[in-house]
Each structure stands twice: as structure tokens, then as C-alpha cells.
């Protein structure tokens, strides 16, 4: 799998005496949309945070673009093209929408290109244009999710990592967000999508991994996973 954009091998993460991730292996090929599904507390968010450099791995390997990430701090991973949309969106509540977007381009210095990308984001999320000067904290949950995604895209990532984008959103808004995810993926972006909503996630992803209490128990092409009895029983209520 040397052609993978991201390759994780035997990743273990522990903090506060709890082994949250107990040795997981997975990969993402360039341009692929991969879903990591599982119930609450399975270790999905911890895995994602470790990939972003916000948690230290206790053992295992993470290779991104052929480079080991183990000793690379979080802020440098952004410059390398990894962008995280954190759980609960993490918008900067007391900064305006426009300022939030600019923060996304923090690692970049090319003023003209940043302006171009701002325009692209406003085109991708027209809702944000009207709200441009509003404080991010005053947006609705769905708008905040859009903002968080747009902000992450402002760093011009190669790999976009989304943590529970559907969390706490109205069904209509969830649909909208997932349409945007598909649209971004269609433009060739590699995406790692962490979701509790297994059906939704597998509908947009090409492949999926199922995580249970810190380990990956199932993996495969989305359609297969959607049809498998184990996934049906555990996550799809069928």
C-alpha cells in the first residue's frame, strides 16, 4: 500500500490509563472517501485526533504521503495538507465568519490565492456569504458545520478529516452537509469521514471501516458493509 495517501498501522492510543485505541490498521488512497463508523466511545474521535496530532500515539505508525508523522506536531501537519474539522465544529465563536475562514488559511502566505479560495468557499456555501460579518457563535448548528468545513478547506488540504459532521443537526441540514461532502470528494479530495450515522456515511463513502471498543472489527467496500448482517444488526437497526 505504498501508494496510499494515509496509512495507519498498529496504532495504539492511551490517555489517563484508558486504552482508547488498541491497534488499528487502515489506509486511504488518494482521492478516496473512506468512512470510519462505530458507536459512541469506540475510539473514532481519538483516532482522528491522533492523526491530526492532537493526541500522541502510544505505539504504531502513521504514514502520510510516505512520511512518518510520529514526531510532527499538529500545526505542521496542517501545512503538510491535513485538515481536521473537529467534533462539535470548533468554530471561533467570537470571530466573524470571514475571520474564521481566514484563520483556516493561517499557514498560507499567498494573499491573492487566499482571496480566490475565499470566493470559492462562498460559492460552495452560499449561506456563508449572507453571514460573512456575523459572529460565528450566532450561526445555527448547520451553518457552523458549513463554516467549519469551509475553514478546513481554506488550508488547501489534500486530506480532509471530518469528525461527526451530522452531530446534532436537523435531518434536512444533514442531507445538505452530506451533499457538500460528496461534491468536495468529487473534486478529487481525499476524505476520512468519522460518523455514528453509519448508513449515511456508507452511502457517500467508497469504503468503510467499522470500529468497536478501540479496534477495527470489519472493513470493506461500502455496499458490502451496508448489506452485511453484522452492520445491519449493530448500526442500521435492521
Amino acid at each position: 500500500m505504498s501508494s496510499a495517501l494515509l496509512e495507519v498501522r498498529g496504532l495504539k492510543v492511551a490517555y489517563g490509563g484508558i486504552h482508547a485505541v488498541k491497534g488499528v490498521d487502515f489506509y486511504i488512497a488518494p482521492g478516496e472517501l473512506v468512512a470510519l463508523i462505530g458507536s459512541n466511545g469506540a475510539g473514532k474521535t481519538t483516532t482522528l485526533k491522533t492523526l491530526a496530532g492532537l493526541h500522541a500515539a502510544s505505539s504504531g505508525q502513521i504514514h502520510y504521503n510516505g512520511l512518518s508523522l510520529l514526531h510532527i506536531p499538529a500545526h505542521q501537519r496542517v501545512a503538510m495538507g491535513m485538515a481536521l474539522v473537529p467534533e462539535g465544529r470548533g468554530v471561533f465563536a467570537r470571530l466573524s465568519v470571514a475571520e474564521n475562514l481566514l484563520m483556516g488559511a493561517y499557514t498560507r502566505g499567498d494573499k491573492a490565492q487566499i482571496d480566490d479560495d475565499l470566493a470559492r468557499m462562498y460559492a460552495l456555501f452560499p449561506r456563508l456569504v449572507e453571514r460573512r460579518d456575523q459572529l460565528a457563535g450566532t450561526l445555527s448548528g448547520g451553518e457552523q458545520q458549513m463554516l467549519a468545513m469551509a475553514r478546513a478547506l481554506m488550508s488547501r488540504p489534500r486530506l480532509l478529516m471530518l469528525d461527526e459532521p451530522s452531530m446534532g443537526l436537523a435531518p434536512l441540514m444533514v442531507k445538505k452537509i452530506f451533499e457538500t461532502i460528496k461534491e468536495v470528494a468529487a473534486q478529487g479530495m481525499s476524505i476520512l469521514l468519522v460518523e455514528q450515522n453509519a448508513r449515511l456515511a456508507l452511502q457517500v463513502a467508497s469504503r468503510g471501516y467499522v470500529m468497536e471498543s478501540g479496534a477495527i472489527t470489519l472493513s470493506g467496500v461500502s455496499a458490502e458493509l451496508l448489506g452485511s448482517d453484522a452492520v445491519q444488526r449493530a448500526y442500521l437497526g435492521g
Partner: protein
Amino acid sequence: MKKLKFSKQHVLFSVLFVSVMLLPFATDALLGRGWVRIVDFAMLYIMLALGLNIVVGYAGLLDLGYIAFFAVGAYCYALTGSPHLALAFPLLFPDGLHLSFWIVLPLAALLAGGFGALLGAPTLRLRGDYLAIVTLGFGEIIRIFMNNLNAPINLTNGPQGISRIDPVSVAGVALNTTQQVFGIELPSVHLYFYLFLSFTALVVFVSRRLEKSRIGRAWMAIREDEIAASAMGINTRNLKLLAFAMGAAFGGVSGTLFAGFQGFVSPESFSLMESVMVLCMVVLGGMGNIYGVILGGLLLALLPEVLRHSVVPLQQALFGRIVIDPESLRMLLFGTALIAVMLYRPAGLWPSGVRRRELESDEVAP
């Protein structure tokens, strides 16, 4: 139209400038020379409040030991600009060390900044209440050190403090003397006023530039959400250390000026109450807004003096004796004022635009 607006601003600025320049003369004529001195102290407090505003207002790191950096700056100049070192090292400095203020100033800023980073490093993972407790402890440690470092080597002269500190000299003119400029008599307090005014202007300028800079925006992002800030590619560790160091350096500069102005420093001036006072200036005035912080500093620095000069005569006139000691009354009024501001103007007297917008929309949202 545009030209008119420009000239309007221009006029406003000129009026403000002239009135500030005439302030010591007006104060002197109306209230007496003692009040010019009080205004000078108010300027030092404003500088302190602006420095703390970087740490608390921009980066959102609650610091309850900020006065320690003021102390570091003050003791820096007290040691290097007075005869005191002759006591500690009679062979090395028989007359003490009398370095020029302008040499000590940048060094003191640097040292205070270093202390700021020193406080910041072990507290990187702390936030809110926990950070407040550690910084409070740090402030007390510095004060207690100053209080006790008179043995085994008499470095700080303990509780007695260090006196006979050299005055600040500008272009060979010592500021503790009365000067004649174009036939106008400028007493020492006036000279210090202009010195402090220039430093305050500098601090305001630097604060404004920082606020609008990439660093300032990164601080605000950290204040809002540290994890998300880190996910934006912000080196949160370095930027938090920078906020501590930057704020501390401002405090150090202010302390150095204080030592030169006062001619005397002792640990008493750097108690926890002073840290609380400076924090109150920032919060009361309007956290994160430079002009609010200036207003807060001015009000809280002048309030105790106004009370001191009005409460005693008032009570004498009403009751023929002093019923309530002005010092206790000060704390009472102070507490009441704080509660009132927090109830009716929770974002401060002159909040930053952002905070105001936030509170307004909070009222509309639900």
C-alpha cells in the same frame, strides 16, 4: 465628502492631543500639584492594564499574578540605578551601580518577558481557574522573594525596600528637577507626565498593531477554541508563551518607569491586591478593547484618590468626625461598582465591538 470626514477626524484628534498635552497644567491649576502625580500613576496603571489585556483580553489566559512583572521591572532598575548594590557587593560596586535608565529599560523588558515565558511554560495545559491559581501563586512567590532576599546576601533590602533610585534622565536632563522651557516652568511631575504619555502612546500603538496582526488573530483563535486553533496550524504552545512574554514585557517597562519616578521600591507595592486591581481595570473597562482598558485604568486609578480627598472632609462636615475609614469605604464602593458593571454592562464600560455584538445577538437569539 470624504475630505470633510477626514478633516473632522483630524480636528477631533488635534483637540484630544492638545487637551492631553495641557492636562498637567490644568490639573495643577485646578486641583494642585499632588493631583498631577496621581495622574502620572494612573498612566502607569494604564500601561499595566494594556499589558495584561494582551494576556487576558487577546489570548484569554487568566493571569492573577501580573503585578510580579511590574515588580521585576521595578527591581531591575532599583538594583542597577541606585547605590544599593554597594551593600551587597562592596568590593565590586563601591558606589552601587548607576546604569542609565535607557540601558536598563530594554533589559528589564527582556527579563520580565523571560519571567513571563517562565510562568507560561509550566502552565501551558492549564486554563481558567487552574491557570488563575498558578499565576496567583507565581505573583506571591516573586513578592515573597523580594521580601526575603536580604539574606544571605542583601540583594533586595527586604521589606525596607530600595531607596535613592536615580531619576530618569532624558537627553542629560534629570526629570526630578524643575525645568524652564520657553519661559514655561515644568515641574518634575509634569516632565514625568510627558514621559509616561509617550510610553503609553507606544504601548497603545504596539497593542493596536498586535490586535490586527496574524499573531493577534491567532491569539484570539486560541482564546475561542484551543483545539480548533491547533487544527488551523497555529503553534499554540509558542503563541501562548509569546502572549505571556509580551504582556510581561509591558509590565516590566511600566515597573522600570515606576522605580525611576518613585525613587523607591518595596515589596509592599506588589501585593496580590495590585494584580486584582489591574485585572479589574481590564474587565471593567472592556476586555480586548484598548480604549475600554484605558478608561478602566484611568477610572480605577483615580477613584481611590477621589474618595480619599472627598470622603474625609464630607464626613467631617456631616458628622463632625470620621465614621467610616476611607480605606474600607473604598473597598465597599469598589465592590459595588464591580457588581453593578457586571450586571448592567457585562462586556465592560467600553466593550470591544465583537463583545458588544455578541451580547446583543444573545439577547435576540432565544
